[in-house]
């Protein structure tokens, strides 16, 4: 589904709820002012807003994976998902990272989604988006082995047992 179609779908709900135009700008401005004063934790600003408050930028992805978003919505887990990163442009919350989380929670009618408000401009947001993966550690297949063995995931246990039978080792092997 294209981002334009998703924005249109969400805009219809915003219009029905009266969250558009001047009303939207006033609510966003008030939420941001309140959050800056009261919800600043370790230099970061957090607030909870309904997912429909958040717009998707056209400069990021051109498509939204509906299946992926639906899965996130139905299996939403605060411990698993980081807060959605959002910045403000022309009095609107614009999603910087977490488009599928926002749309997923919108699809399942969740009342609120935790967002982290970034105090940056559009250009800064684009540069930050481009550089975000560069210094972040990506999990490797071997990083999953030990935790999976501790909780005894069947495929990992079978993998280890068969390797053990044939005297084959692997990085992350545990003694049982």
């Amino acid at each position, binding site marked *: 589904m294209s981002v334009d179609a998703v924005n249109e779908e969400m805009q219809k709900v915003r219009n029905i709820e009266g969250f558009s135009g001047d009303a939207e700008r006033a609510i966003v401005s008030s939420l941001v002012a309140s959050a800056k004063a009261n919800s600043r934790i370790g230099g970061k600003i957090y607030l909870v807003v309904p997912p429909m408050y958040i717009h998707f930028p056209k400069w990021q992805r051109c498509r939204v994976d509906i299946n992926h978003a639906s899965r996130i919505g139905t299996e939403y887990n605060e411990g698993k998902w980081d807060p959605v990163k959002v910045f403000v442009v022309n009095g609107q919350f614009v999603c910087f990272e977490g488009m599928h989380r926002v749309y997923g929670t919108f699809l399942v009618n969740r009342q609120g989604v935790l967002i982290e408000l970034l105090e940056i401009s559009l250009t800064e947001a684009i540069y930050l988006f481009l550089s975000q993966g560069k210094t972040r550690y990506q999990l490797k297949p071997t990083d999953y082995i030990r935790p999976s063995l501790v909780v005894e995931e069947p495929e990992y246990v079978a993998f280890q047992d*068969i390797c053990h039978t*044939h005297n*084959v*080792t692997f*990085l992350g092997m545990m003694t049982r």
Partner: protein
Amino acid sequence: MGSTTAITDAVKMCQKNPELWDKILDLIGRLGWNGNDNKGVYSSYNIRTLRNLYAKYADREKDMENVLLTACSGSEYYHNNLMPLAQRQRFDYLNQIISTRLENIDFLTQSKRKAKTA
């Protein structure tokens, strides 16, 4: 015997078909490719190649294994013939050997049957 780096392939295999992972490790052990500390014997290159060969010869697994054990055994064989090849080339190389030998075996079996019936 060795160390495997084909974690993703192996775990996926163990999820769907752990017997196949067992068969592949068993076959590599019997082939003796890792006898002389050859690197990458249990790498994804070989694991995928053998997985694809098991899939291709699903109805003649034992024959395929016997051909490999007869024609492609030993760490020196692995070092000289397979190590220089890329993954796709390894499959083509081994598949060529197996298909040729299986054709020969089939031909001989048919010839024997014809001789008996004649």
